[in-house]
């Protein structure tokens, strides 16, 4: 079916209450991951996340459009057409979980899943005035979800406010025998009551530098003001390797993509490799090149070392503060077509989200204002691994103090 926003690839039950990004397997129904390679593919089992929601009384409503293989920041890489932003149809709702965010923001459903490998749930949340958690790496099972980059892939959750996101998170954040990475010796989530006065929020200066849109910067500054007045302590901090994040991410991720997409041979299911779209081809070729004999040390392994430095930055900062506050995107939503022909420019949309992915940290994205053109602006709270309860506490408190999340697009 085609809806006005092109968010829905398949409606399963109009009376349902949750929708899944189309890279989540749903038993007996088509799963395409937004790619013609998987068009017509019907799985015989469901993702663990889908099973858990069904066991807890949720009813599947639809499957949502997304960038093919979750590759993209705008939704434009979907083989089934781009998704439109419900706030303004000329703009992208963010990617790669583009259909999920458009469906939640337009109130087609209150709850949806997405995946976040480098920002793919946070950008869509920020661009549509929604709330979303990209959890600690390993907090939610990846079983039955089409793999993109296995060392940063995080099943993620999006809703209309932080409270709802937390409800979803509590249902699906658990160990799963079918994804060994969900087992962790440090798994216990940070507990306790989080009174504003007891929490320190850090502002990493590298996230507020040149290239940051004025309206975005101003909206986050006002959010900071709201939190300060409520008693949160704010401190300026530094993450010196921030600027290398995009280079590191776009070296590591394509290598893992090339490996994961090697399984699509058209023999057991799906179509032949000639059905891959341009972006998947680019990433497969790039990842194959940067990990090939003679080049691996210079590119892939070098990036893995700088990844260590990025993680060490966060470790140092979280000795001083409990949570970081940053914008999600350096700009408000951009227009469909604006970056579609310039891959590097598109990749740079993820500049404020990839580092947390590389470090496996949880990040809660929520809106903090609107531009003069009435387009949403998003911020994110980032914490150490397993600190989701802290992020939810700050996010919920912020939404008690402000009304941005209650604004709805006129459709």
């Amino acid at each position, binding site marked *: 079916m085609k809806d006005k926003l092109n968010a829905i690839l398949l409606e399963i039950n109009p009376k349902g209450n949750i929708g899944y990004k189309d890279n989540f397997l749903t038993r007996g129904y088509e799963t395409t991951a937004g790619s013609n390679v998987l068009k017509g593919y019907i799985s015989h089992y469901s993702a663990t996340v889908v099973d858990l929601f069904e066991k807890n009384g949720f009813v599947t409503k639809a499957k949502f459009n997304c960038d093919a293989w979750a590759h993209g920041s705008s939704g434009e890489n979907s083989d089934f057409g781009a998704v439109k932003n419900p706030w303004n149809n000329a703009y992208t709702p963010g990617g790669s979980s583009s259909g999920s965010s458009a469906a939640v923001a337009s109130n087609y459903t209150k709850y949806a899943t997405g995946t976040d490998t480098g920002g793919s749930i946070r950008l869509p949340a920020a661009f549509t005035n929604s709330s979303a958690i990209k959890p600690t790496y390993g907090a939610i099972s990846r079983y039955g979800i089409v793999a993109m980059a296995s060392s940063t892939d995080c099943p993620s959750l999006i809703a209309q406010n932080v409270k709802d996101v937390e409800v979803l998170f509590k249902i699906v954040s658990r160990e799963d025998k079918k994804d060994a990475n969900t087992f962790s010796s440090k798994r216990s989530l940070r507990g306790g009551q989080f009174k504003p006065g007891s929490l320190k929020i850090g502002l990493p200066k590298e996230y507020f530098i040149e290239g940051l849109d004025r309206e975005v910067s101003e909206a986050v500054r006002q959010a900071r003001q709201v939190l300060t007045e409520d008693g949160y302590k704010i401190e300026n901090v530094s993450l010196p390797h921030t600027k290398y994040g995009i280079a590191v991410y776009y070296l590591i991720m394509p290598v893992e993509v090339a490996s994961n997409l090697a399984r699509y041979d058209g023999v057991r299911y799906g179509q032949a490799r000639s059905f891959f779209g341009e972006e998947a081809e680019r990433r497969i070729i*790039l990842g194959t090149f940067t990990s090939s004999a003679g080049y691996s040390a210079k590119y892939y392994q070098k990036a893995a*070392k700088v990844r260590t430095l990025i993680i060490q930055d966060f470790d140092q900062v979280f000795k001083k503060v409990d949570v970081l506050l940053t914008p999600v995107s350096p700009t408000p939503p951009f227009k469909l077509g604006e970056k579609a022909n310039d891959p590097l420019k598109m990749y740079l949309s993820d500049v404020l989200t990839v580092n947390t992915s590389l470090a496996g940290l949880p990040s809660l994205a929520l809106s903090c204002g609107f531009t003069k053109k009435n387009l949403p602006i998003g911020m994110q709270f980032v914490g150490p691994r397993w600190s989701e309860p802290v992020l939810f506490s700050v996010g919920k408190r912020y939404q008690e103090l402000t009304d941005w999340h209650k604004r709805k697009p006129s459709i």
Partner: protein
Amino acid sequence: MKDKRNQKLVIDSKLLEHVASLAKITVNEGEVKKYVVQLEEIIEYFRQLDKIDTLNIIPTYQVIDNTTNVLREDVIESSLSQKEALAQAKRTHKGYFLVEGVLNER
């Protein structure tokens, strides 16, 4: 400092075609042209990492907390039936997946 214009390109069309063939990706002439330019620009962007000293830094390939094996009880659980496993294949033969020939000579 080297003049940027004199730097040898990292990727040319021959190398790109070779890499694509390793990954079983078929690229036409137009795609080769386009990808060479785009990937060269992206690889040029990676150059900024060259100046970081990573001599004694241990690389990070995963971010999970524990690196011990996770084992399960050795019990038989239900799995896909042969019929289900073959259901999505375009071509099957007597309960097997049918694939292109690998060896050409007898």
